[in-house]
């Protein structure tokens, strides 16, 4: 259904959900931009490390650790947008054949489990951050950086994922299909 046509037929509650969905989508896309920048950053850092080792004979010990941190940013901040677009690896042989209410019920189950995982990531992630902060742990190769700051990307990304899942659940319960879900086929690594 095109957006203008949908707008005329929506109830006020559905319109409010669509408005919230747009805001969350913008936040989620910003997360993906951060993850993409981190991907290019990791690419640049590894190239820099190779260049310093072979051309200047100065191996860099800190780059490996920094690249690992960038990996945390890449995954945790690209995740909400992957969820929003329905990119996840899954077995949809049965659910693809379903229609109507049954299909919606299974979609709600799927998004519900994602929300549960996101909740776990936030809860457990915060506990880890608080524990690391209490101990005052620092990074091995870049001691200027407290480790809890990097660990905080886990609950932050989890919170964003939870937000996306909540909006998708709200859409389903309001009788709407979440926008963009399944419109962008994922790149396969198989």
């Amino acid at each position, binding site marked *: 259904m095109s957006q203008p046509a949908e707008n005329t037929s929506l109830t006020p509650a559905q319109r409010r959900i669509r408005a919230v969905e747009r805001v969350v989508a913008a936040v989620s896309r910003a997360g993906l931009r951060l993850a993409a920048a981190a991907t*290019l950053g990791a690419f640049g850092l590894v190239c820099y490390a190779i260049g310093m080792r072979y051309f200047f004979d100065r191996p860099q010990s800190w780059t490996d650790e920094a690249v690992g941190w960038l990996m945390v940013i890449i995954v945790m901040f*690209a*995740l909400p947008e992957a969820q929003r677009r329905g*990119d996840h690896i899954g*077995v949809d042989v049965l659910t693809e054949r379903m229609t109507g209410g049954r299909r919606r019920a299974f979609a709600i189950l799927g998004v519900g489990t994602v929300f549960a995982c996101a909740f776990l990531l936030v809860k457990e992630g915060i506990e880890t951050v608080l524990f690391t902060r209490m101990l005052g742990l620092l990074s091995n190769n870049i001691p200027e950086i407290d480790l809890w700051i990097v660990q905080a990307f886990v609950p932050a990304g989890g919170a964003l994922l939870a937000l996306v899942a909540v909006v998708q659940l709200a859409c389903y319960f309001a009788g709407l299909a979440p926008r963009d879900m399944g419109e962008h086929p*994922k790149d396969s690594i*198989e």
Partner: protein
Amino acid sequence: MTFIVILVALIALLYLGMPMFAGMLLFSAAVLWFAEGHIGNLGEFVFGQLNVYLLVAIPLFMLMAHFMVRGKVVDDLYDTAHTLVRHLPGGLGVATVFACAVFAAISGSSVATALTIGAVAIPQMLRYNYSPRGAYGVVAGGGTLGILIPPSAPMVLYGFVADTSIGALFMAGVLPGLLISALFAAYCMITEGRRERRMGPAHVRPPRATWGEALASLRKSVWALSLPPFVLGGMYFGIFTATEAAAAGALWALIIATVIYRKFGVRDLWEGACDAARTSAVLFLVIIAAGLFGYMLTILRIPNQLVELVATYDVSKYQFLVAAMVLIFLLGLVLESISIILITTPVLLPVLDHLGIDKVWYGVLLTINLELALISPPVGMNLIVIKSITKAPLAEIDKAAIPYILMLILGIAILIAFPQIALWLPQTMRYGG
């Protein structure tokens, strides 16, 4: 027995349509909760699973493939292959296998290989009266080479889970990849040659390319052909680690796409980074969930029970390998390849150690078996890709894949009988096993 119950329960959950990571993570957390009363320090566990330098190779290899494809560097690959082998019986099929093998060494993805080469090769083959079933089969089969011929994301994952050298795994995939390519090419030559003879004078085979034509065609693809030796050579000679090879390969690809081909802009670079980030996020979440799944299995002592079972029944190395291959083949009918690696490896690893099975050798056998999953119905991704290209009935495509399934099984049998085919190259780079 416990493992089979867990496996069946997990597969049943996944068939409800929930994302793989969510199903696996919640299932493992629930079992751990019941068994131990807690799920461990999940926050620390997730951070530890993500904060791994080695795994950055996966998004970087994705970037490399993106630069080559979006920069149009690989566009002439099929034409070059066709020019070189067009005089052979089934020349179009042989060219498709050849192009798939080279593209596999650039993309590291079977689905991308089937999609990219299939989109060019299938219409061409059908135009020149190649049998439709033959055309679908060769793209389905040739596409699977993507995960065997390095670089290969599933091999990186297996190497990470099995704590095995990624460089050795990549090298071990080269000769088996070429062997299976040769099997596929020979099959095309035999079947299409027979068909051409049946067609009689109605079929006209193109003449052999002259040296001039062959050189001109090679010149068009020289940059695409330069990438695999650059990446693999760098690893083979110990210049790069796997992650560095991925970054250096991506840089080389970026230089070719921007400086030589000039068909790649900042927007393409950004889109490549976004795609790589999104795909990595999806994949790494499955890795985290599978890590917890493996931890849960260890807590339940399932790998130990399996070792005890193998010791009790005095199972030989070869008996175990055959049983493991059958199990993985059956799993391939219901699950996709990443999950199979991540679910089975932690369980089977202690048995591999107990029986003295080389982990690199097993990794190659596993990868070929995963290729089977890509062309086995109902979840064979390459079959779905071919359907999307051709709109042909899936039943027809399924039938076309059968000879290639048999050839992959033959490939596994050959490698079980002659492990040196896989292990010779890594051993020359001082891989000790």
